[in-house]
C-alpha cells in the first residue's frame, strides 16, 4: 500500500433525473452538504476539494468546475478538477485518495456533478466533438456509432446473442427499482422489453443504453487518524489503478478492454489481491451500455473472456448471488450523469460495505468491493478497491 491509509467516511447524492430545475451549482451543493452531514463534518474541517465533471460542452460553460466551485465548498480551498470523460467519477475518488495518501492533506471533499439537460436539442451534440476533426467528423458520426461498433465486435468474437446481453439491462434496471435516487428503476422489465425496444444503431437498441441525466454525488475522504475519530465504520481505500489506451481507436482490438485490465492489475497489486474472483465480494463495473458491464467484468479479470454473460445467466451476479454485480442498478437503472454516475458506484460500495444499502443490501456482510469507470474515447480505465 502506497502512502498513508485513507478512508471514505461519508457520502451523499441527489436523485438522478432527466432534467432538474436545480443548476449545476445547486446540485453540487445538495450532494456536498449531504455528504458532510452524513459524517457530521463541516466545511471548515475540509482541507481540499476535488471536483469532477465531464465535457464543458454539456453545460455551455467554459471552465465549469470553476463555475461549480461555490456549490462544492471550494471557496478558499486548494481545488483540482480531474477529467477523464466517463472515467471521471472513479478517477475523482482516486485523486482524493492521493491528495491524502501523499500527506499533503488530511481531509478531502470529492464532488462530481453533471447537468446534461442544458445541451439542446440533445446532449449527443456535445459528444460529436470527441471524434477526430479531420478524418472522422466529416463522415457525420454520432456517439452511438462507436459503442455499436464495439458491441458488434465483442458479440461476434464470442458468439454472444442480443439475449445474452439484454439480461444485464434487466438485472440493473430491476436493481435500480430499490435505489431512492434512481431515474429508470423498473421491477417488472423483461428481456423481451429490451429485445423489442427501438433499434438505434444496431446492435444497440433503446433499452441497451443508459439515459442522459442531471445529478451530483459527493464523498468525504480522510486520513486514518481523522477517519477513526469521525466514524466507527471507515471504508478503506485498498487499491487504485488507472490506465489509458491509444487514441487511435480504430487500431485497437475492440473486443477486449485492455486499459481496464491494466488499471485492475495495478489496483489488485496494491491491495495485495491474488485471486480477484474470490477476494472481491461486490462489483460496480461501469455500465453505460449493457454489453459494457460484461466487457468490463472480463477486463477486471472477474470473468473469462467472452464468458461474463454466464455470470448473469446463472444468477451469480444477482444481489443474492456469489458475486453481486451492480447492486445499485448502475447507469442503466439509476441514471448516467456522467461524472456523478462513476462516483455513485463508489458511494454504493461504501454503503454496501457499511451495511447501509437498505433494500439493495447484499447479504453475507461483504468486506471488499470494487468500482470501475471508463471513458474518454473508449480508452481509459479507472478502478478503486474499497474494504472494511
Amino acid at each position, binding site marked *: 500500500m502506497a502512502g498513508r491509509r485513507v478512508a471514505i467516511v461519508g457520502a451523499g447524492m441527489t436523485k438522478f433525473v432527466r432534467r432538474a430545475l436545480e443548476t449545476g451549482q445547486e446540485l453540487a451543493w445538495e450532494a456536498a452538504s449531504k455528504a458532510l452531514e452524513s459524517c457530521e463534518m463541516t466545511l471548515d474541517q475540509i482541507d481540499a476539494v476535488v471536483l469532477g465533471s465531464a465535457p464543458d460542452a454539456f453545460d455551455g460553460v467554459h471552465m465549469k468546475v470553476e463555475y461549480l466551485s461555490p456549490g462544492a465548498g471550494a471557496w478558499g480551498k486548494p481545488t483540482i478538477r480531474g477529467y477523464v470523460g466517463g472515467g471521471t467519477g472513479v478517477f475523482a475518488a482516486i485523486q482524493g485518495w492521493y491528495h491524502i495518501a501523499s500527506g499533503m492533506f488530511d481531509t478531502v471533499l470529492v464532488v462530481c456533478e453533471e447537468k446534461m439537460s442544458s445541451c439542446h436539442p440533445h446532449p449527443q451534440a456535445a459528444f460529436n466533438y470527441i471524434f477526430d476533426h479531420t478524418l472522422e467528423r466529416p*463522415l457525420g458520426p454520432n456517439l452511438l456509432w462507436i459503442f455499436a461498433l464495439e458491441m458488434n465486435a465483442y458479440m461476434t468474437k464470442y458468439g454472444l446473442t442480443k439475449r445474452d446481453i439484454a439480461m444485464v439491462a434487466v438485472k440493473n434496471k430491476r436493481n435500480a427499482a430499490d435505489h431512492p435516487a434512481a431515474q429508470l428503476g423498473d421491477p417488472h422489465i423483461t428481456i423481451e422489453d429490451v429485445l423489442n425496444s427501438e433499434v438505434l444503431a444496431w446492435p444497440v437498441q433503446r433499452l441497451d443504453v443508459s439515459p442522459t441525466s442531471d445529478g451530483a454525488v459527493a464523498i468525504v475522504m480522510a486520513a486514518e487518524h481523522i477517519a477513526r475519530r469521525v466514524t466507527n465504520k471507515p471504508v478503506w481505500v485498498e487499491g487504485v489503478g488507472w490506465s489509458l489506451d491509444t487514441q487511435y481507436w480504430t487500431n485497437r482490438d475492440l473486443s477486449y478492454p485492455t486499459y481496464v485490465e491494466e488499471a485492475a492489475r495495478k489496483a489488485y497489486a496494491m491491495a495485495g489481491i491474488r485471486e480477484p474472483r474470490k477476494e472481491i465480494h461486490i462489483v460496480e463495473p461501469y455500465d453505460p451500455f449493457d454489453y459494457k458491464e460484461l466487457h468490463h467484468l472480463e477486463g477486471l479479470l472477474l470473468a473469462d473472456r467472452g464468458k461474463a454473460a454466464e455470470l448473469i445467466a446463472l444468477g451469480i451476479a444477482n444481489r443474492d448471488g456469489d458475486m453481486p454485480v451492480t447492486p445499485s442498478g448502475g447507469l442503466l437503472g439509476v441514471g448516467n450523469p456522467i461524472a456523478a454516475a462513476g462516483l455513485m458506484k463508489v458511494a454504493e460500495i461504501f454503503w454496501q460495505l457499511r451495511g447501509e444499502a437498505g433494500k439493495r443490501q447484499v447479504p453475507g456482510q461483504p468486506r471488499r468491493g470494487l468500482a470501475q469507470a471508463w471513458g474518454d474515447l473508449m480508452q481509459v480505465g479507472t478502478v478503486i478497491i474499497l474494504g472494511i
Partner: protein
Amino acid sequence: MERWVYPVTSLRPEDVEQKRVCTTRTPLRGEYAWDAGVAVGRFLTELKAGRLIGRRCRACGRVMIPPRMFCEQCFRPTDEWVPLADTGTVITFSVCTISWDMRRLEVPEVPAVIAIDGASPGMGIMHKLGEVGRTLEEILDRVRIGMRVQAVWKPAGEREGAITDIRYFRPLED
C-alpha cells in the same frame, strides 16, 4: 442511505413548454479551421490522388493508418511512407437508424471499421459501407464482420483532399 439523497425538482417537458419555470436559451457559435498536420496532411493529399498511404515504424515494424509522424508505442519518429491498397476487411460495423439528434433516418447508415490491406493486421480506419441494402434487415443479411470491401472514390475532379473523397466502401466481388 435514503437520508443522504436529495430529492431534486424534476422538470417535465410541459413545465418548460408552458413556461411554469423560467429558462434562458442562447446558441453558442464557434467556428474552427483545423490544420491537418504533417502526417494527415500528406494522407489527405494522397486521398485527392485516389490513393491510401500509411507510415512504417522500423523499430516495431508496424505500418500504421491513420499515419503519424511518431510511433506512440516506441515513442520515436516513424521512418517511411508505405503505399496501401484501397481494399480491406470489415473489422466491425453497425447499422445506424438515427441521426445525432435522435431523428429517424429513412435509409440507415452503415459505419464500419475497415482494416486496410498493406497496413499491419488490425490497423483500421472508420468509414461507411455502401451498396449493402436500404433497410436494417437487408443490411444485416448482406454485411458480415470479415467481409472484404473496396473503396468507391469520387471522380478525380470532385476530390478535395478529404476523407469523404472515398464515398464509401462496397463489398468486393471475389
